[in-house]
Structure formats: structure tokens, C-alpha cells
């Protein structure tokens, strides 16, 4: 699994960092998404899928 994040549409709601904190964080500056693991291990894949569904602005996707 490979994740793509688009900080230009991210609104910093934090759903990704809440749902999959080992994979996503938020910038201290403007709260936008930061990828800690662009290719997360298998045990994170469910959480990543949930985070993608929950993201309110469509800023993260699975490539």
C-alpha cells in the first residue's frame, strides 16, 4: 500500500492523525497532513483505509 497526501486541499481536521497516528501526523504550522509512513506496514492498512474514508476534504488517497 502506498499513500498520497495533498496538502493543498487538506483542511487540517485531524481525522487521519486521530485514526492512524502511526502513519499520519499534522504540521505544527498549519495543521495539514504529514505522512510518517508513505508505505505503511500491513498491520496499519485497515486504519489507513478508515482514515481515507473519514477525511472530510479528500486529501489522502491510496495509490
Amino acid at each position: 500500500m502506498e499513500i498520497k497526501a495533498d496538502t493543498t486541499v487538506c483542511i487540517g481536521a485531524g481525522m487521519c492523525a486521530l485514526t492512524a497516528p502511526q502513519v499520519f501526523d499534522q504540521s505544527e504550522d498549519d495543521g495539514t497532513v504529514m505522512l510518517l509512513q508513505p508505505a505503511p506496514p500491513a498491520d496499519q492498512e485497515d486504519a489507513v483505509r478508515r482514515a481515507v474514508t473519514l477525511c472530510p476534504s479528500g486529501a489522502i488517497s491510496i495509490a
Partner: protein
Amino acid sequence: MSDLTLTTGRERPFDPPDVYTRIRQQAAVHRMTYSDGHEGWLVTGYDEDRAVLADPRFSNRPELMHPPFARPGFKPEDTGRFRTPPGFFLRMDEPEHARYRKLLTGQFTVRRMKLLEPRIREIAESCLDAMESARRPADLVEAFALPIPSLVICELLGVPYEDRARFQDESRKMLTLESKADDVIAALGRMSAYLAGLITRKRARPADDLLSGLVAGGELNDEELTGVAILLLIAGHETTANMLGLGTYALLTNPDQLAAMRDDPSVVDNGVEELLRYLTIIHLGPVRAALEDVEIGGRLIRKGDSVTLHLPVVNRDPDRFADPGTLDVARPVGGHLAFGHGIHQCLGQQLARIEMRIGYAALLRRFPGLRLAVPPDEVPMRTDMSIYGVHRLPVTW
């Protein structure tokens, strides 16, 4: 003309009005008559609601919208008297909205909010200390549900809590559906004047708080700073306070659910999400205006039409949530729309989550014998306010 209109009156305190639950069984998108006679739309389906809220072809600018609900104190000509104040980015579209929101999102991240936990815990415990030593019965709204978010948002923004009588009263007038338009405008004016004065003081004597930081950032003028401050102060008070009050009422009338959260603190985080879903206190909208023709749920929504999203009904869509009318604090509940969806999804949601998690855990631990001090049907409900909840919650222990 459609017979369907928007109402806040309910048959039962925790369930959305039956009429919307009934029509949801036929369709997800419905014609609805707005208070000015406009033939617009009401959305009751989960997928359709998300589609509207995520679509930039739907605007959140109030001047493009028809009023879905007749405020009894408003005359038809009053609607046009309301304009979005500078900086009040909730009611702006992109790119204006992002300019303001980006200045704030760094202050409301999951990690930042986690740093506030020890202080929020102190605040919650001190409210409960005061409640414990006061006379029984107590009003849980006054002792617990309102002061916790109020103290927290005041400290975060840098608003003196001792001034709360000024902005809590003004906020209440603005959100009371029966208020006359003149009174709403006057209340907004007084709140703006108060916050403009505060911003002037922050410029002269900056402190370690959010408003001082925004002033020092230099990107917003004083009018914009005032609009941002109004939005954050009202949103920070009225939402979490009502979720704590209404949620406690729901738990007290569902004792098995209360016991599940009290006896196993690891259930609390999930229980908070379920309470958000089950109670969904935003009961009058949001509303959007179509900027062009858009098809949603098989219906063609024309450019200029207003669309109302019924979040309490949407959060009980049986296609999305099994047995949606049952409060089940252990259910897997991700994906509720209590904080909205799309670019306007609640900026303060991570703060609200932490306040509720800490608040409920502390309340249930400290008052294991908490119970209503009046019959359940005598709890006064906020059907007369733009944000739902309880006016008071008499409790004893």
C-alpha cells in the same frame, strides 16, 4: 408546493422529528418549502449528505441561501440584514475560507489538543469538586456542562473568564430562535465591541494565547480578528456544553449504557463518538446553495436552489448504521457526520472530543450514583435554540 417544512419540535427528546425519519424510508433527497416560499431541498441520506458537503458546487455563503426555518421573531425583510462579518470564515467559500482556516488549524491539531489534557482534567475536577460541595439537587448544565468548555475556550483564546456573563448572554440571544432580528443584531454588536476591545488590549499587551498569536501574526486586520474571535468563542461554548448536558441526560435514561462507560473507562472514547452520532445537536441545517445544476441522489438540484442537510436524521441512516435508533456505546461508530463533512468540518472537533472524553470519565467516576432529580419528561429541551440540548439538567446523587 411541498408540504414538507423544517421543524425543531420532537416527539421524543433523543430522536429527530418522526416526519423526517418517515420520509427517509422513501427517498434520500426531498423537496422542501423554505420560509420565504422557495421550493428547495432536504437531504436525509448519509451518502447524499456527504456528497453535498464535499462538493464545491454548493456554497455556504448566507446571501445565496433561502431561510429553511421561519424564526418567529424575524420579519421577511430581516433575512437580508445579515451579512457575514469579516473573518467569520464558517460562512465563506474557497479561497477566502482557507485563508482564515489555515491560520488556525495548527492550533487545533490532535497533538496540540493532547497537550491540553492535564489542564482540562484539572478544570473538570474543580467543577466536580464545586458540584460535590454544593447543595443537592444541582443543575448539571450550570455546574459541569457549561463551565468546562467555557473555561477551556477562554483560556485557549485568551478571553477573561470573569467576563463570561457578557458573552454567554449575547451568545444565548443570538441562538434563541424566538429572538427578534433587532435583538440578535444588537447582541452581535455588543459581542463584537467586547472582542474588538480585547484585541486592542492583546496588541498592547500580548500574552501566551491564541488571539495574541493571531494579532502578532499580522495577517488579519482588527475587523477580521474580531470575526474570527466571535466564531471561535460561540462555537467553543455552545456545542460541547450541549453535548455534555444532553449526553448525560441520555446516559441517565439508558442506565446499561451509563454503566458500560462508567465500569470500563476504555469504552469512553467510543462512547463519545456514539453520543455524537445518536444526539447530533446541530438540528437546523447546515444549508448550502447550489452554484450550478448538480444531480444528487437521482434528483436534479438547480443552480440557486437551497439544500438543507438534516444531520440528526442522516446519522441514523440504517444503510450506514445498524439499528440506528439504539444508543450503543460499544458499537463501531466511525464516520458519523455530527461535526459535518467537507471543508467546513468542525475546526475544534479534536478539542471537543478531548473535553467530552475527560468530562464524561470524570463525572461517572466521581458520581457513580448520579441520577435525575426530576421525572425524565420534565427536563426542558432546547427545541427553541439553534443548537439542541437541555436548558437545565437537575441531578442528585
